[in-house]
């Protein structure tokens, strides 16, 4: 990776200021930069997903082999989208180009490319809207900011819609609440309709549609992966924990992103789920059919999102559980919070989410019946149902990275902080404008967690890295907690690239470290094997 991406010292962030006419000229494959554009989707991935016109090309080639009537299809779908989505239609109409969103986008800050301003990103498609769906655009053309739909425009859309991580930071600052992420999301769906799409997320969507998880693991593979997580738990704590899988009649279904039992540092968070559930004696089960909380469909299209999140409810019905707990994941929680109930609900076959340990009724999840692990844990801690030894995390000076989706899509800000403060002695916030609702993206969300755009990811992660650098230099922070699987995957590379000795963890890992279990041996290392210093 590193040999492809220029080192951080050599990056420049010069902002180019084009004229409005230049902005209307599409960026085509001639200007595509290596490290910025995505690989093309493979037939085998998108054909099972009913995405039409599957073909395998190189985006750098001149001819994109668009279907002959692509324009009609695109405009037809455009009109359909306007009818189906009020947000999209309103956002097409009401932008005043005040520029409040411009320097809110981490990709704009990282690349200086004016088309990466959220407003300009939306203008890419808005110019088409004006040309074909408004009178002013039809009559005045370029003067009204309208332009014809050409193959070049499609190329530009492909290039820039896949340079957005759907983090919604711009939406937070827009005086009209224009959500560029929403525009890009529906824009990607439009591109899908003419077979223009990228490779990365479709691999996972296809796998998840088939096997239930993004990694394409088969049921036994999942169970055995979880078993080895339990082995690691034994190694550290000396406690043998059970891992219920597909257990019918359990009270609670637990859904986590599949990376949790596959990748590090997700793994350590998974260990502490097992430890926690064992410790409080929760009657729960993992599932192999709904083995994935994450939903890469939410990066692509409504239908694909629905395809993936439907399984959670179907599995809950099948296993006859009462309600559901979801693990740490960012876009998963946007999906579970804002999408799943609408797309696949209602979940009236489940019971009210009441914590069997504390008796707390999770009123805010009354209809979806799905509770975030942080809410669940915060409730346990609040009622003193688990014993915690904060000093076991003393070797970590922790900061918390609000992942975009839980903060701007769910509003989950205080619970994670409550959990961290209960588990750690040293907790420091990053600068005010980079946390909570103003949090920065890791630079790799929204389907961008792919190797070929490493430079874009490193540049886009720059603001977050700088915030981390600030607390690292000021307080000696060496651990960045978060509640997002993509963050956990993206940050180690980002921190390495920006030369920050900051480790990444899920906040449940901190919980697992601090959790005092019945019958545990004296721990010599924390969950990730870092030995505790002996004071001899």
């Amino acid at each position, binding site marked *: 990776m590193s040999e492809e991406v220029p080192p951080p010292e050599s990056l420049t962030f010069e902002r180019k200021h084009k004229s409005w006419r230049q902005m209307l000229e599409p960026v085509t494959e001639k200007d595509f930069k290596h490290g910025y554009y995505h690989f093309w989707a493979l037939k085998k991935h998108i054909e099972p997903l009913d995405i039409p016109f599957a073909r395998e090309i190189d985006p750098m080639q001149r001819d994109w082999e668009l279907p002959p009537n692509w324009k009609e299809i695109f405009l037809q779908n455009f009109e359909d989208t306007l009818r189906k989505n009020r947000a999209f239609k309103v956002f097409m109409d009401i932008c005043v180009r005040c520029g409040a969103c411009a320097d809110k986008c981490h990709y704009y800050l990282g690349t200086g490319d004016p088309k990466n301003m959220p407003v300009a990103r939306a203008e890419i498609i808005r110019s088409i809207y004006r040309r074909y769906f408004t009178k002013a655009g039809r009559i005045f053309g370029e003067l009204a900011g309208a332009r014809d739909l050409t193959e070049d425009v499609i190329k530009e859309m492909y290039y820039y819609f896949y340079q957005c991580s759907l983090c919604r930071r711009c939406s937070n600052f827009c005086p009209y609440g224009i959500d560029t992420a929403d525009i890009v999301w529906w824009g990607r769906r439009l591109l899908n309709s003419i077979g223009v799409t990228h490779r990365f997320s479709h691999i996972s969507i296809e796998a998840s549609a088939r096997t239930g998880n993004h990694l394409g693991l088969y049921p036994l593979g999942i169970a055995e992966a979880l078993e080895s997580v339990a082995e690691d738990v034994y190694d550290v704590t000396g406690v043998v924990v059970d891992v219920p899988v597909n257990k019918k009649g359990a009270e609670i279904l637990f859904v986590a992103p599949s990376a949790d039992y596959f990748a590090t540092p997700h793994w350590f968070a998974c260990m502490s789920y097992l430890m926690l559930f064992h410790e409080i004696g929760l009657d729960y089960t993992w599932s192999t059919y709904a083995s994935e909380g994450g939903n890469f469909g939410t990066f692509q299209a409504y239908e694909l999102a629905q395809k993936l999140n439907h399984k959670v409810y179907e599995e809950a019905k099948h296993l006859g559980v009462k309600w559901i707990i979801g693990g740490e994941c960012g876009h998963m929680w946007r999906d579970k919070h804002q999408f799943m109930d609408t797309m696949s609900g209602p979940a009236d076959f489940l019971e009210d989410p009441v914590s069997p340990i504390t008796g707390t009724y999770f009123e805010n999840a009354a209809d979806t019946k799905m509770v975030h692990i942080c809410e669940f844990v915060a409730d346990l801690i609040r009622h003193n149902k688990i014993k915690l030894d904060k000093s076991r995390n003393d070797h970590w000076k922790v900061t918390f990275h609000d992942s975009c989706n839980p903060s701007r899509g769910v509003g*989950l800000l205080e619970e994670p902080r409550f959990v961290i403060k209960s588990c750690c002695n040293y907790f420091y916030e990053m600068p005010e404008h980079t946390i909570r609702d*103003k949090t920065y993206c890791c630079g790799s969300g929204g389907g961008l967690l792919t190797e070929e755009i490493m430079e874009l990811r490193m540049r886009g992660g720059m603001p977050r890295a700088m915030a981390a650098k600030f607390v690292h230099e000021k307080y000696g922070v060496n651990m960045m907690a978060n509640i997002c699987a993509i963050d956990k995957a993206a940050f180690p590379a980002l921190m390495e690239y920006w030369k920050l000795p900051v480790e990444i963890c899920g906040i449940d890992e901190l919980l697992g470290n601090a959790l005092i279990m019945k019958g545990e041996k004296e721990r010599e290392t924390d969950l990730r094997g870092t030995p505790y210093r002996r004071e001899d």
Partner: protein
Amino acid sequence: MINPFLEIVVPYAAFAIFIVGVLYRFVSWANSAVPLKIPTTSGQAGTLPFIKRSFYDRIDSPYNKWEVALRMLAEVFLFRSLFKNTRYYQSRHEHRDTRWLWGFAILFHWSFLIVLIRHLRFFIEPVPEPFIYVTELIALKIWVPTIYITGITSLIGLGYLFLRRLFSGNERTISLPSDYLALILLISVVVTGLVMRYIYKIPLAPVKELALSLIVFQPVAVDVHWLFILHLTLVSITIAYFPFSKMMHAGGVLFSPTRNMPNDNRKRRHVNPLNPPYHGITREEYNEMYKDQLEEIAERDYNFRPEV
């Protein structure tokens, strides 16, 4: 100068276009479905009782419709989101609050609103005494040849909005001719108004007579000054342009799903009227596909215990 066309036909046409256009816009927006409840949550959501939510959290992440109403009011009248604006200093990788845009935007919008309200004196008869008193008070009447501050401040606000489009690099890049057009129209309306008020004074009684006759639909072509006809024509152009331009953001903000919906997604289900049916592998198909493996899991009694 009597000109029935400019005095009667143009204003009526413009007003009709304005009303019909705005209603058309409202209805066309309303004709689109709202597939998802997607509020931007800029604060702590409603959650467990011991998690404190401050007043700002209630505005920024509303949990019920009252809090949504509060959020919309703050958004419409105080430009709440714009108030949170920050600036990124690339050289130091540092953020600061920046409220210039907010300040001048709010200066313009409020001043202009007050100017509009004060214009009511031309459209109503008899003008109630308290109305004059109150509007003069809020319009900040000062000096002995009276000057209403709001007229001046709305021009200052517009001037700032215009100049930033010219001189700020980001702004120049994203500004379209239509952005300038809207500003130029408003500026010319304000300038002609100010000229008539302070520099080249024109008889008022015919103006009021014309305005009244228009508003009660008994149009009379009155002999008014050409400056006023210019003002009236510019206003007509502006309001006729209104529904088809970005100025429609005034109504659009009310339709913005990221702001006008409560963040109670998991508490109350949002129904998508056009929700497509599920296409994909059902649990039964899945059972078929991975029969062997699932059976093995069943054999282990659905419980995996590490061997130690």
